[in-house]
């Protein structure tokens, strides 16, 4: 694939795939293999499991690609497929499940608006502790933290990926960040 394709947006490529340019799907795999692989590795630790899940995610993406609305952003859509496949894989492996329900999706929360300046500040502090503490964080908090700080998704996009209220995303990120700081403090004692 030439340079011309590198500059195309995901949504433009998907539009072409939907209209029959199937060979362009390779570009999407190339763009998302690393990102989705990194996301999957935060929940699965066996290389074969990760590869199986990755394959399944891209197959599902291809099968369902015509349901994607190209007026919307592509990355939350593919992360939604990845989220579902991870939930299935964890269920299959009988590992600690990603919680689908929790009290925090029932109740409203007052969460301050997403702030990109705060996110930048947070990133400097939190990146160094994410790598050390993430494994010990409850999956319920781990997923939004990864999607927000590592994968760069917004609150609204995370709400679409996990299909939970936007305020719940905010509260999980806030609590998850605090829990990670506590873990980090304990580790450094």
């Amino acid at each position, binding site marked *: 694939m030439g340079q011309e394709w590198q500059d195309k947006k995901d949504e433009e490529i998907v539009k072409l795939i939907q209209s029959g340019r199937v060979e362009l799907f390779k570009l999407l795999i190339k763009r998302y*293999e*690393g990102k989705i692989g990194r996301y999957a590795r935060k929940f699965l630790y066996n290389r074969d499991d990760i590869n199986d899940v990755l394959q399944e995610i891209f197959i599902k993406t291809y*099968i369902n690609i015509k349901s994607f609305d190209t007026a919307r952003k592509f990355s939350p859509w593919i992360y939604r497929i990845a989220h579902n496949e991870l939930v299935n894989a964890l269920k299959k492996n009988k590992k600690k499940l990603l919680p689908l329900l929790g009290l925090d999706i029932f109740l409203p929360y007052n969460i301050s608006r997403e702030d990109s300046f705060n996110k930048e500040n947070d990133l400097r502090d939190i990146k160094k502790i994410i790598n050390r503490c993430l494994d010990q964080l409850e999956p319920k908090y781990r997923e939004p933290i990864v999607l927000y700080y590592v994968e760069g998704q917004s609150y609204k996009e995370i709400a679409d990926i996990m299909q939970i209220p936007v305020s719940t995303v905010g509260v999980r990120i806030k609590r998850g960040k605090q829990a990670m700081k506590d873990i980090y403090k304990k580790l450094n004692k």
Partner: protein
Amino acid sequence: MNDQKNKKSISESVLSKIKEGKVKMHSRIYFIFRMILLVLGLVGISAAAIFLVSFIFFSMRQGGSLFLPQFGFSGIKILFLSLPWILIFGAVALIVTSEFFAKHFSFVYRSPILYSFSAIALVIILMGVILNFTPIHMNLFLSAQEGKLPFAGGFYREFGAPKISDVFYGSVLEIKDSGFIISTLREKELEVITDKNTRILNKNINENDNIIILGKKNGQTIHAFNVKKVDEKKGFFTPPNFPKRQPIDRVLK
């Protein structure tokens, strides 16, 4: 090096499956059809919930329990005990199922369940109240009594005119010195005995008035503790032109 090899194998494996035709894209029609099914499911379940909610109001009015709060605290207590819990649980289950269907839409899952569930429940209850203003349930109830309603006939006969112990709701046929003769949906004639201990909450009870009685039944006689005239037309949950309490065979004539 290994990662590079893996990346290549995942990409190649997926692409070769696509090339070999082992993996095929679903057509747009497939997704449109799925969306139609989802919307139909949501509309169907919500419509069933609305129908059931309106039927609960109808059933409570038929049995007279909707008018019990007019007797004060003791009436409210009987109302609570006589609520059609099976129907209420059925309606709640349908509302929960509606929420489950609606959760597929982003404007629903982005809100806390407390909000989305309350909004769905409110809309269904409001629509149920509106449907309750139509004569649909009375017509179906009468058809069921005539045996002309094969599908839901049993349901209407079972729940359409519930019997509440010690509560009698009927139309005055005759006024006597000892009380009244009334007819109810279940019985053609019942004698209501009133005495000095009976609380009659309206003094101007006339023939053809609908009255509700709290009392003990012995054979075809009711010893009344409380009597209250009911003006169904003034009731918020009552449809206009709601028929008088008469036994079913009279209504059918």
